[in-house]
């Protein structure tokens, strides 16, 4: 396993009791738990006020705590995706969902459909209930997507892969290699295309395709062989040849467990599902998967360099997310009306105290976690809050710029 601790060393677990905490990246798992907590909370409500609050919380934390690595800039793409989802949802209601609701806002010319398509109506009357229903639905989905986007822009995807349990190490390694190789492939396509001009050949057509693909493939194959040889000579897969039975057991346990987890999640999130499909299946699946990972992890003799550790800030972040989700579940049992504002009759969405507190718990990481390290130190004299903007300011820079100095040493306190 990657995170083996050394209990002999005093004070290792709680090194950051000074304030403000030293800048360091948070464990990616903490951000993911936090974001998933927000997403689960969002899935339990269609109240636009609550959803807007969740969006605001996610966006605020992202702006305060993202670094300046390339993936940190992906948040706006998720925002755009969210907006697209809402627009599509509303548009579909306008096109197909005519005729529900009494508050008709306007009427579009209806397109008559043949008998076979009875029950489907195109255009026609557009009611406020119908539009609002689409909007609420779309907003809920969009909020969940944006929460995932928040995790993506806060957590380093490669460190996330490093934090995978030992049994999944091979999967993580191949993903990392694929991520590294992809830009090389793009580069070699560009190089070969450019070289083709030297033979006076164009860049289009079947012949051109062949002229590009063969050199590029040859390049890629050579490189992958070289990489495989390099990895082998550096000890990759040293103990991988354990015994095939353990491998099989690990695989079966992990897959069965993960299927159980998926089913359980569905049960928990879908209020209409039978109770047995919910928590019991989720917990059972989780246990089986964990057992698989432990069995698999036992045969792996490998250590991790500078593993991310769970420290108070990580626990707090994950806890904030879990609290948000848990409080939302509690209110769903006590007072569901405010979570699902009524559409017929139309009514203003209202807020009650507990859900608001639940969502506000999600904003705590914006203040209580250490800042991420930045590659370009802000000029002396710039207040810390100003430093936050340097991440966004770097956005329009050429894509090569973050690559060139993207990964700056993590300014972790040397234990």
């Amino acid at each position, binding site marked *: 396993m990657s995170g*083996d601790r*050394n209990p002999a060393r005093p004070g290792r677990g709680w090194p950051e009791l000074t304030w403000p905490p030293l800048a360091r990246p948070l464990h990616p798992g903490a951000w993911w738990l936090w974001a998933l907590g927000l997403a689960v909370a969002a899935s339990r409500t269609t109240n636009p006020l609550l959803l807007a609050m969740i969006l605001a919380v996610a966006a605020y934390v992202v702006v305060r705590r993202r670094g300046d690595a390339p993936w940190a800039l992906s948040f706006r793409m998720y925002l755009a995706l969210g907006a697209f989802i809402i627009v599509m949802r509303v548009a579909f209601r306008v096109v197909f969902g005519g005729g529900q609701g009494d508050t008709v806002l306007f009427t579009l010319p209806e397109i008559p459909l043949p008998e076979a398509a009875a029950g489907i109506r195109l255009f026609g009357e557009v009611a406020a209930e119908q539009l609002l229903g689409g909007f609420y639905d779309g907003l809920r989905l969009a909020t969940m997507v944006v929460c995932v986007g928040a995790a993506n822009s806060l957590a380093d995807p*490669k460190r996330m892969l490093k934090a995978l349990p030992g049994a999944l190490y091979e999967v993580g*390694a191949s993903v*990392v*290699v694929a*991520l*590294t190789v992809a*830009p*090389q492939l793009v580069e070699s396509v560009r*190089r*070969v295309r*450019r*070289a*083709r*001009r*030297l*033979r*006076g*050949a*164009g860049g289009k057509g079947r012949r051109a395709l*062949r*002229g*590009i693909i*063969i*050199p590029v493939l*040859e390049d890629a194959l*050579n*490189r992958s*062989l*070289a*990489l*495989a*040889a*390099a*990895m*082998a*000579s*550096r*000890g*990759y*897969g*040293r103990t991988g040849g354990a015994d095939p039975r353990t491998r099989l057991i690990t695989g079966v346990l992990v897959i069965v467990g993960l299927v159980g987890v998926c089913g359980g999640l569905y049960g928990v999130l879908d209020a209409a599902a039978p109770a047995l499909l919910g928590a019991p299946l989720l917990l059972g699946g989780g246990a089986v998967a964990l057992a698989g990972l432990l069995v698999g992890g036992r045969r792996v*003799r*490998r*250590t*991790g*360099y*500078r*593993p991310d550790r769970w420290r108070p800030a990580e626990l707090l972040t994950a806890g904030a997310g879990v609290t948000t989700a848990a409080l939302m579940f509690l209110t769903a049992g006590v007072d569901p009306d405010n979570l699902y504002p009524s559409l017929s009759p139309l009514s203003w969405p209202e807020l009650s105290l507990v859900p608001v507190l639940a969502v506000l718990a999600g904003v705590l990481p914006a203040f209580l976690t250490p800042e991420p390290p930045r590659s370009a130190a802000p000029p002396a004299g710039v207040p810390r809050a100003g430093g936050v903007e340097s991440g966004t300011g770097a956005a329009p820079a*050429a894509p*090569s710029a973050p*690559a*060139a*100095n*993207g*990964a*700056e*040493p*993590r300014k972790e306190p040397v234990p």
Partner: protein
Amino acid sequence: MITFEDVSFRYEEDGPAALAGVDLHIPEGELCLVAGHTGTGKSTLLGAVNGLVPRFTGGHLRGRVTVAGHGTESRPPQEFAHLVGRVGQDPLAGFVTDNVEEELAYGMEQLAVRPEVMRKRVEETLDLLGIADLRGRALRSLSGGQQQRVAIGSVLTTHPSVLVLDEPTSALDPTAAEDVLSAVLRLVHDLGVTVLIAEHRMERVLQYADRLLHLPGDGSVRDGTPAELMPDCAVAPPVVQLGRAAGWSPLPLSVRDARRRAAGLRQQLADRTPGPPHPVDTDTDTDTGPGAGTADAGGSQRTPLGEPLLTARSITVTYGSTVAVRRVDLRLAAGEVVALMGRNGSGKSSLLWAVQGSGPRRSGTVESAGGDPGDLPAAEARALVGLVPQTAADLLYLQTVDEECAQADAESAVAKGSCRALLDELAPGIDGASHPRDLSEGQQLALVLAIQLTAAPRVMLLDEPTRGLDYAAKRRFGAIVRRLAADGRSVVIATHDVEFVAAVADRVVVMADGEIVADGATPDVVCSSPAFAPQVAKVLSPLPWLTPDQVARALAHAGAEPAAALPYEGAPR
């Protein structure tokens, strides 16, 4: 430390033996240089040390290879990771992670080294190789020399007792190569690592090597100290060739040795004028010989320059906000070989591509007989200016050499067989049915050059053509380049290879930071700074002699010393 017991290896059952009956014993702490022409089995020998050969290459290995008592026949390469560190030619191809620190730690992670130890060793290694300021950088953003040092560091962190380096500097510019080699030498002295290194810049390592393994090409390995083997070794650095020409014994292994020995030779040559530095075809040669008694330093009595073929004015190339080439003027005349030098990233390639017209050009004009190649369609541009790119194989995509030649004839709309005729002239004896990618580097280069020459451009630009060529192939290639120039073409060669430049180029243009910093006749430019001076110039300085060929010919004419056996003639083809 390493033993080979009667090791034979062939890639195919009935193919030729890459290694035949090799018996070796390399004791701990030795620096062992592996020398031989391309294709004589250097890489095979090195790969066999940790079992990559035959496990990753296929083939049949007989005999036994052991490292510290462990045989490669029973354990996969993975199990040698703590014993043998291996660094290849292209560092980027071997990187597993994407930043420096993690790359250094990768090997240790695989060996389950404890995190505290790992942390300490990473710091030590960063300091040992002088790359501490690069620790968090992305590997792709490093220069070639830095990458290679990181690659060496990444295998050192596991504290191997053997370091295997397969041509670690072949892709680097001279300064970066020096950095890497001096790092290696420091390791040998400080850590006592056993190093097995194949290196084409032999002159840098030869003087420090405890042992030389020479692979003559028949599968055998000659094993001895450099001083024993050098007199009849087919691959020899210029300083050794000079020693042979002057009939010195024992042969000098370093510039310093030679310089101390050369006082007499300098005196002997002081009143002579050097002949043309490049090897001259003896049948057509009307050698100027010892020349007039006046030593006009730097005076070149090369062929007078022909008419100007191409004039580039204030060429500027930018990528985003970086300026790769800044208002550069370049004039090329018929019959002239121009060397374009400068460190990696100084704008050499960008300039060549911009002049040819296929690459981006922000501003500036190129005048040639048929107009500006940048304004013409690709097919017409290549009839004015030809370019062989750095990775020449990018241009090859068909199944056989004949198909490639036929395709080239069609592309250039010339009579069938033109390309093949050119190819036979450049590199005779290439089988038309063979696959282009099975050719040696030198043959591939000749094929691409022939394809580009089929369009009959009068200006030929070559981007790093000598990389990956051994001494003999380089020599043949130099002769090809001279012949192109003699036919009235103008040739530009971007290269790092000082010795090649000294032997082939008439003029040297040095670029730095996108600008031309020096432009002049080869002896003037090359002898004026120690970094660019070829070995012979360093030995004979202040006399303007550049290559062992010049010296050998001068001595032969004078009939003074026996001009020894001219070293290259014995080179196996």
